[in-house]
């Protein structure tokens, strides 16, 4: 009786359905831009509000040059993990093991470099190899054995924590040679000199702003050539100026502290690469397709197993990158390193707009989600709020963020 299951609700042609009309509707004014992107812009607004709130509560300490540098150093590894995590969540999976993998990769690196005296880069390479191997292990079980990712990575969480203890023989190793410490604690500064600030950092900041403006302009030109709706030119300029101002302020503050952190460069490159990977490549598309409707993706010729496998390999790789950064920052390897990191990464992805059911989410969103968590933690630490309250607040923020998302979706009335 299927003609009844899907009753036809053919609506008459809406008057604005011609391509010409679409050119003028869409995102042509500010109100529409905000409304159309409420889900996306919602988290930016939330980030701004939270930054402003804690800037006031901490008497501006939050935005001081030293503290901004601190936030970057302190949460970089969570943001790296969140990149891999949001991709898995978009694909309809999850990874509970990343904290253990951070510990294991850091431990392997520490054993090679600290205990056995190999050069620092051997430790980095070995950590990355281990991370990729762990990812392949998870990928095999999820993609080819068909075990749910929740179970596979829960097992991995225990398994790789155990292996960490084995590798470290239950003791902490430290310290790393100074080159290794540079990964997380190093800065690029003084390359161009400067009076009381680092000119090089400002230059990089300016290049980033220019890059943002040029790529935005090129996209705009291409879209116009393909007769697609674009925002009005003043709005486009306003957006570029706003983003540029924020970036330059950020660079200015860094330049007045210790310069450009190496870890920020790593993070920026990863965000750029994975942002493009998810939005612009066939692989990225297939991840969204699998998460959005697995059966439809399979029936469209997507090699579901292969894609699932590589998603996990990628997560393993990024967990190893985070492992290197974390071991470098903590200047050693500890058996309990990385505990609960997975939860921070998962929270970042969901606060950043990823959907529990899969198929929805962005790398940039996860970064903003991660920054919201980072600013809150940092701000509360600065205010001297104790750990228990911090945990309560973070938990509530996660819940409210996802509830807002669910509410929005229901109101939008999408079919799912």
């Amino acid at each position, binding site marked *: *009786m*299927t003609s009844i299951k899907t009753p036809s*609700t*053919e609506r008459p042609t809406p008057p604005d359905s011609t391509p010409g009309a679409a050119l003028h509707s869409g995102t042509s004014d500010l109100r529409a831009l905000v409304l159309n992107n409420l889900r996306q812009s919602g988290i930016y607004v939330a980030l701004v509000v939270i930054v402003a709130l804690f800037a006031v509560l901490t008497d501006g300490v939050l935005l001081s040059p030293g503290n901004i540098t601190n936030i970057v150093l302190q949460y970089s590894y969570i943001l790296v993990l969140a990149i891999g995590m949001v991709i898995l969540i978009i694909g309809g999976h999850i990874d509970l093991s990343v904290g253990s993998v951070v510990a294991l990769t850091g431990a392997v690196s520490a054993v090679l470099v600290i205990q056995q005296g190999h050069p620092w880069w051997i430790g980095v390479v070995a950590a990355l190899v281990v991370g990729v191997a762990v990812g392949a292990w998870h990928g095999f079980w999820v993609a080819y054995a068909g075990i749910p990712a929740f179970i596979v990575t829960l097992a991995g969480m225990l398994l790789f924590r155990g292996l960490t203890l084995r590798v470290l023989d239950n003791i902490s190793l430290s310290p790393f040679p100074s080159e290794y410490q540079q990964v997380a604690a190093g800065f690029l500064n003084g390359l161009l000199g400067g009076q009381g600030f680092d000119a090089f950092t400002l230059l990089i900041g300016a290049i980033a702003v220019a890059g943002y403006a040029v790529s935005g302009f090129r996209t705009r030109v291409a879209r116009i050539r393909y007769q697609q709706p674009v925002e009005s030119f003043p709005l486009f300029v306003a957006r570029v100026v706003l983003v540029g101002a924020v970036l330059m302020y950020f660079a200015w503050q860094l330049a007045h502290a210790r310069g450009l952190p190496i870890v920020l460069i790593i993070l920026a490159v990863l965000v750029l690469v994975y942002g493009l990977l998810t939005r612009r490549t*066939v*692989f990225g598309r297939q991840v969204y397709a699998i998460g959005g*409707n697995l059966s439809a*993706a399979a*029936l469209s010729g997507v090699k579901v197993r292969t894609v699932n496998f590589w998603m996990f390999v990628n997560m393993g790789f990024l967990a190893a990158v985070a492992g290197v950064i974390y071991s470098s920052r903590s200047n050693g390897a500890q058996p309990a390193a990385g505990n609960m990191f997975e939860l921070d990464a998962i929270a970042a992805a969901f606060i950043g707009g990823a959907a529990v059911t899969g198929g929805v989410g962005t790398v940039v969103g996860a970064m903003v989600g991660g920054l919201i968590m980072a600013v809150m933690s940092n701000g509360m630490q600065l205010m001297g709020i104790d750990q228990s309250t911090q945990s309560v607040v973070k938990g509530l923020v996660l819940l409210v963020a996802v509830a807002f998302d669910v509410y929005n979706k229901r109101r939008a009335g*999408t079919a799912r």
Partner: protein
Amino acid sequence: MDDTILEMRRITKTFPGVTALEDVTLAVRRGEIHAICGENGAGKSTLMKVLSGVYPSGSYDGEILFDGKPMQFRGIRDSEANGIVIIHQELALVPYLSIAENIFLGNERRGRSGLIDWNFANAEAAKLLASVGLHENPVTPVIQLGVGKQQLVEIAKALSKKVRLLILDEPTAALNDIDSAHLLDLLRALKEQGITCIMISHKLNEITAIADSTTVIRDGRAVETLDMRSDEVTQQRIIRGMVGRDLDSFYPDRESSPGEEVLRIEDWTVRHPVQDRMVVEGVGLSVRAGEVVGIAGLMGAGRTELAMSVFGRSYGRDIRGRLFVHGREVQARTVAEAIDNGIAYVTEDRKRYGLNLIDDVRRNVSAAALDRLSRLGWVNGNEEIKVAEASRKEMNIRTPSVMAVVGKLSGGNQQKVVLSKWLFTDPDVLILDEPTRGIDVGAKYEIYTIINRLVAAGKAVIVISSELPELLGMCDRIYTLAAGRITGEMPVAEATQESLMELMTKDKELVG
């Protein structure tokens, strides 16, 4: 005058945009087996859902009299309390619970302590199993039973509820011949015990063998009730009632000039993915360029299973047979290979298998052929938009923009998106599974026009449809499928609804 146990009077049930039942009146005599038959989508299951309270009182017009008393069922518990029990086509047993636990699920007898008395339950279950002729231990998990035995457990469950009117929806659709025969025997035995039975079935030989009366439903109306005892009712007589719809001139004209053969399958055999039975057996068919070939078959005949198994082995296991594209044998072991060989399959269930509903029109259109829009793994997003815009114009997809989410479009426009997606793979042969299911008349006509345009461009098209007028109006040639086998093939000029329906309801033993 016979003793009437059930009377449904002037039942009308509408869904948004669709009238599923219109003014249906049904009378069932006490202690008879009353068959209901009709084409797919005629309204049979809806009628039974109204009767059993799945659609609660107030959601439909009309009245139900049971034992002469008007009834207002608010849910399935109400109807069961009155002894009306429905057994759905998809069995509703919990696989990992035991037979006894399933029988008393939701109906558990508690002992004095307030806990379930399992000794009593198992003993009762054993008695019930004996009465349906099932010799299994009541503590056996249901998952260990075959479909035929599970069906018997369902009936035992119904008996435990003191059933007076048993409704069976396609009870033998998933059963093999022996289990079917056993089930029919059991229904006769239940009739001896005074239990009235309503049976929905597509198998006309079963109906003529067992039913005392038959009501034919067509397009949401009860067309006629045949008394199987007094009249000499043949299968042909029932068929005439089922298909008596007028062929209208609703289908756009097309010049037919088939060219070379594009796709051929030989001796195609598919086993059910979990159950131990053949879903498709020894099927052979072919389609030529510029030709529309129809596959007619009732629910459960294996139409979709056949199509999906050909399309990159997306269904079933132990698939055997040969597949030829342009006369060359190919192995399409995966969907990607099938697409590479120029085969496209447009699913009958676009929401589940055809679309990513949370994504936009553009990315749904490109989903099956992203490689055509990409170089070294990078998608050219602007070209993609151009392709989507072209599809939107060509297919007349009514959407505010190609960036609009597909889930918000109407059924007809969603179907056009699915079609666009498959056309963008540039296929040589399109298999369209129920291409006009659930879409309104205007959109149907548009889909037909699109099909004609494709055929004129030299594509080969296979249409699977439950609507015989649609097949007769669109196809050059029609195959009939019953119980996984081809039971006939004829040029459309020689086909009538009656002749097709006869071949579609032909059961195995009657074949060849």
